[in-house]
């Protein structure tokens, strides 16, 4: 009771039998719609949400602390376990950060491969988001459609590096594996396969009356609040801010490609849905361009066997499917990082939950948790 985190508890004089006071409900950590082990304490007046409080840490594994006892190379697979839905993006961010610290650059072919795989992963992540988000709002069918198509992406990953989820696809200085025989053909085939499928998802939802009613005007957040809270990714863009690190601070070879940043106006759940759907199409565009232009050449830069970056610190961020994923690495010149701090998009975006659901209904809490697209592995690390 004295625990400061639980300030939503009822006051002693409010606790009466059959009272009409606020109801305090624990949503999670075991709840079908909190996407893992998020616990949200809801203060309800009937169905209306008076306040929320997120309790996190159920999936805390101390990834940042582990880093201090691993060499740079050894820590590489750990980052895949943060946002396990978009493991490739995590790996990309980490490898690029360390490369920046080492002052080496991956060869162009490796960079193109990284872009292709990262964009495929963005598609996979958005597909998983769409399926679960729709499931939370009650449409059960899109989940199976998106999982069917996500499977094709995972098959490409599996063929490339042997793993489907926690891929560990990249190494510091480039890629370890050359693309397999027929990689380009298979990716092209996948692009042809998935393009009409995105229309199929939209057909089920975009103009569906119930879907529109459930999402329009729900969980609205203004651009100002987004910036104040540090919210990034599709959530920020749906509020009308044209901020995408792929364009703003191009990394890998994103500067070479021609693609748009979809933005919304109202910053509600429906806009976020539209923005993400459009982002999937833009990802397809990027992949198509990358697969056409991918150069020949080496895939690994010259990096020493024992990675010993010079003393210094670096912050490097990439546009992960969920927002800005940043790595702040402090090196003391040894083989192990002195400190690694991850800026996880899910964790920062989750802070907007309370603002977005206040004075809305219980069902909207579910919709907003879905639309924030959080992965608890990344929130807790």
């Amino acid at each position, binding site marked *: 009771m004295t625990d400061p985190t639980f300030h939503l508890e009822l006051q002693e004089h409010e606790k009466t039998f059959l009272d009409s006071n606020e109801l305090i409900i624990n949503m999670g950590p075991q709840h079908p719609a909190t996407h893992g082990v998020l616990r949200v304490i809801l203060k309800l007046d009937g169905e209306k949400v008076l306040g929320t409080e997120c309790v996190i840490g159920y999936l805390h594994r101390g990834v940042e602390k582990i880093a201090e006892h691993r060499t740079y190379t050894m820590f590489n697979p750990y980052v895949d376990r943060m946002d396990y839905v978009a493991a490739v993006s995590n790996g990309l961010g980490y490898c690029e950060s360390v490369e920046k610290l080492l002052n080496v650059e991956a060869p162009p072919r490796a960079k193109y491969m990284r872009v292709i795989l990262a964009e495929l992963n963005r598609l996979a992540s958005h597909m998983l988001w769409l399926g679960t988000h729709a499931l939370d709002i*009650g*449409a*059960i069918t899109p989940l*199976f459609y998106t999982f069917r198509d996500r499977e094709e992406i995972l098959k490409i990953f599996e063929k490339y590096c042997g793993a489907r989820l926690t891929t560990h696809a990249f190494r510091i200085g480039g890629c370890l594996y050359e693309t397999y025989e027929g990689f380009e053909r298979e990716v092209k085939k996948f692009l042809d396969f998935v393009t009409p499928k995105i229309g199929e998802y939209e057909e089920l939802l975009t103009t*569906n009356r119930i879907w529109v009613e459930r999402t329009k005007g729900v969980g609205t957040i203004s651009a100002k609040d987004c910036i104040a809270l540090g919210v990034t990714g599709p959530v920020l863009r749906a509020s009308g801010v044209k901020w995408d690190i792929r364009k703003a601070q191009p990394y890998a070879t994103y500067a070479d490609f021609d693609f748009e940043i979809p933005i919304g106006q109202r910053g509600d759940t429906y806009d976020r849905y539209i923005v993400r759907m459009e982002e999937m199409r833009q990802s397809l565009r990027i992949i198509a361009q990358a697969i056409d232009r991918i150069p020949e050449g080496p895939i690994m830069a010259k990096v020493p066997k024992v990675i010993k970056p010079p003393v210094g610190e670096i912050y490097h961020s990439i546009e992960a499917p969920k927002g800005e994923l940043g790595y702040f690495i402090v090196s003391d010149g040894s083989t192990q990082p002195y400190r690694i701090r991850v800026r996880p998009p899910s964790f920062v975006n989750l802070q907007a939950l309370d603002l977005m659901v206040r004075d809305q209904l219980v069902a909207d809490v579910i919709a907003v948790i879905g639309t924030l697209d959080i992965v608890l592995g990344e929130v807790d690390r």
Partner: protein
Amino acid sequence: MVDYIKSYLESTTTPGQAGNMFWAAVYILLIFLGLSVAVIAMNWLERKILAHMQVRLGPMRVGPHGLLQPIADAIKLLIKEDIMPSQADGFVFWVAPIVVVITAFTVFIVVPFGPTHAVTDMNIGVLFMLGVSSLSVLGIVMAGWASNSHYPLMGALRSSAQMVSYEIAMGLAVVSAVLMTSLNATGTGTLSMIGIVQSQQAQQVWFAFKFFPLGLIAFFVFAVAMVAETNRAPFDLPEAESELTAGFHTEYSGFRWSLFFLAEYSAMIAVSSIAVTLWLGGWLRPFPHLLGGSTWDLVFSLLPGITFLLLGLMAFVGVFRMPKHPYFRVQTIGLAGFGMVLGLIGLLLFLPEVRNRIQDIFWFSAKVAFFMYLYIWYRGTFPRYRFDQLMKVGWKALLPVGIGVLVLTAVAGVLL
């Protein structure tokens, strides 16, 4: 004994009206059995159809194409530990599922499967059905309250609010159908379920198509309200899985839970039966005008047998498509046996004696099955409404439309 049975078969009223207690009891037993089988079949069909809509296979392991899955599930539920939360109100917790099941089954007393195929025919049949089926909300509230837990309580509150509000729209739609009965040749209206179908027969029109488009609108209002009334998608808020885990039956498990399940599905069948009786001509066969005459009568009376033969044929196709591996031998034999039973039923249905008696039941069941399919289809297609939107649809859309249709039906009835 034989004479006794024969005397009934030639009777023209329901056993309840004839005061024939033996046959009434037999009917009740048959309906109870048939309903249980229908719920089991519905369970399997829902999982299969939903699975195929969602590009997956559904149950495939227990029996050929998972045909025995519902039975396996039932056994699992029966032998599961019966958990009662320690803080629960024991008696209410115990009695709630029973209340729900009893109300769900009682309504079938007046459902007319044919002109004589009902337990009894009441002159207030429709009223009885609506009244008894709305009692189930009592059981749901009891379940939610007795669980002494937040989520079930919220589920129960949602459920009661929802069922009460949609009953009004539903009632208005029903009244317009009842008004239509009073406009028949004799000029007397009726609330009796059998009387309503007979007046559709006399007027030579299903009420859904009467006073076009008034009947159709009233039918539509009822069709929406009945989905809400049975707490099914897209109105499944009381048991919204993603919000309230399982709503009012969160704390129930094992056999008690299966009673809720049974009640939900038989309530679906019950409201579909009302819809069929009131708007779709009950046991009457389709297209009496378009495809009239004794030849077509014969063709339509052969359809039940043909349907069963086709089902049997499908089972045999399944037998030949079954993998040849010895592991599948039992399944193959079972499926062949199932196909044979279906085929035999089909052949039996070709006998003139049986055919003429059974086709009422067949058409009624076929129409109800159509509604059951719609239920599954809705579930596969629609997201879930939010609570305030649900209330908005009920009070601001369906209710005014229902009143409008009622008034217009009355006006049309006087003028036409």
